[in-house]
């Protein structure tokens, strides 16, 4: 995947990603329109499909709302790179197959609007403008199984079938 970097700070919480008043919406498209409204009301309009969020520590802290990664995904963001993620946000992202990467070094170096390319197979983030590459660790094999199955729901369906047999 390839896209422009949008830099964010530390402790970006779920309430700025998608404010509480929109939690009565479950249509991803609608949620996408309000993505990051707590930081910038026009954020979703500025995003081009494929763009990449690059954030600091504890990205997605706060509530358990899955609406947060859904809004980010629906706004057109292809991947989130952060120094660290809040744990519920991390799990939610895997479950809805929003690609996320923990890579503090990349976050330190990447600048706003840099063109990035992410290769999950090789575990590499390339900053094309800078001509630099950053390595990241793959998911643990257990999580890889969930991702390979196409998300948690497919994994659950498989487990249920195994139980019947």
């Amino acid at each position, binding site marked *: 995947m390839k896209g422009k970097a949008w830099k964010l700070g530390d402790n970006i919480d779920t309430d700025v990603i998608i404010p509480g008043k929109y939690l009565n919406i479950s249509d991803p498209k609608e949620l996408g329109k309000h993505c990051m409204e*707590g930081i910038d009301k026009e954020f979703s309009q500025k995003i081009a499909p494929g763009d990449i969020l690059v954030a600091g520590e504890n990205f997605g802290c706060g509530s358990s709302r899955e609406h947060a990664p859904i809004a980010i995904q629906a706004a057109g963001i292809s991947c989130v790179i952060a120094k660290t993620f809040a744990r519920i946000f991390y799990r939610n992202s895997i479950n809805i197959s929003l690609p996320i990467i923990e890579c503090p070094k990349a976050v330190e170096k990447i600048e706003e609007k840099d063109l990035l390319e992410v290769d999950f197979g090789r575990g590499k983030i390339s900053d094309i403008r800078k001509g630099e590459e950053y390595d990241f660790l793959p998911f643990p094999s257990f999580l890889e199984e969930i991702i390979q199955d196409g998300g948690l729901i497919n994994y659950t369906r498989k487990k249920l079938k195994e139980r019947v047999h």
Partner: protein
Amino acid sequence: MGMTITEKIIARHAGTKIVKPGDLVMARVDIALGNDVTLPIALDEFEKTGAKEVFDKERVVFVLDHFTPSNNVQTAQQCLKIRRFAEKYGLIHVYDGGRAGIEHVLLPEMGMVLPGYLVIGADSHTCTYGALGAFSTGIGSTELASAMALGEIWLKVPETIKIEYHGRLGEWITGKDLILYTIGKIGVDGALYKAIEFGGEVIHQLSIDSRFAMCNMAIEAGAKNGIIEADEITLEYVEKVNLQNKEVQILESDVDASYSAILEFDCTLIAPQVAFPHSPGNVKSINEIETITIDQVVIGSCTNGRMEDLRIAARILKGKKVSNNLRLLIFPATPHIYQKAIAEGILDIFLEAGGTICPPRCGPCFGGSMGLLAEGERCVSTTNRNFVGRMGHIKSEVYLSSPAVAAASAVLGRLAHPEEVVSKGAK
């Protein structure tokens, strides 16, 4: 090497004797909880799993506490979807209408969470139940759907930080002040991915209500769970609520358990604490703040809507009036607490003071309904988050405090120490 209480509970539910931090396990869940924010997405996902029924009708719990009574058609539709699902699958534990209260206060009160349990809930404040010596943690909607179908969940065994509280608490200091103080010290990611085990003599003298408030906000330090080993105070509480005599498992950390860090706090000099906008980690002592005038006070939530909280607020508000042009909103957390507060004359005190008594719901805490803030308004609140726009307008401000500080602030129209309203030692 010994195990911590968190590791022991996870091991038992994973059907194994020993686990260590970093292990990935499949763990059986005792309770899977959802609410009217997270369920609408979870129910769609559940249908996609192909499951014909939930794993155990006694162990799946729905509470409609965020958006009921519905404030608009969208939320009404969302709640209707949940009610229809509950009917279709014959669920027993569905708390709606007059049976609903704030989930994390309601479940313990009904004896649904007991020491040694493993509870997952699609609400980040599910970590509240650690106060009873249970392992409990928040998850998202898709995970809830999977757990409702399978009755189990994957967990990474967390490292544990032990925090010991020593000394003697000053007057007006409650669990809320201790947890705000703690988050102020360790930061909003100070316990990221980790368990926090609260201990020390101060913790074991705290009321169960104060312990709930502390574990409730473990997530505000990034923790996976907060936990307090069960003691006599826990067992006394459990005896009152465990009317069906379900099995209780009292577990303790081994003396040679391993911790990623051990912190010790001397509590003797801790003054009432306030988290300033816009982070629960932006904590100051009430004694070192400038004048902050306020427009609204909220007393309630899964952090501080319990009897102890209402009693403290009543002690301060008795015979007093709320400051001119200030709105005081009180949300007793459950119908039971509401009734008890009526019986004790506490609601009368609030009404006499000029407060508004609201239904046992989440209210404005997450910006849902009943008391949102306008541009530039400031609110002192006993809730747990003060992020940008959390309670309404993006340019409004929320100051998190104990019920004592909130009540005193309601009287004076500015952030205030309880001693400014009630003289020292007066009961």
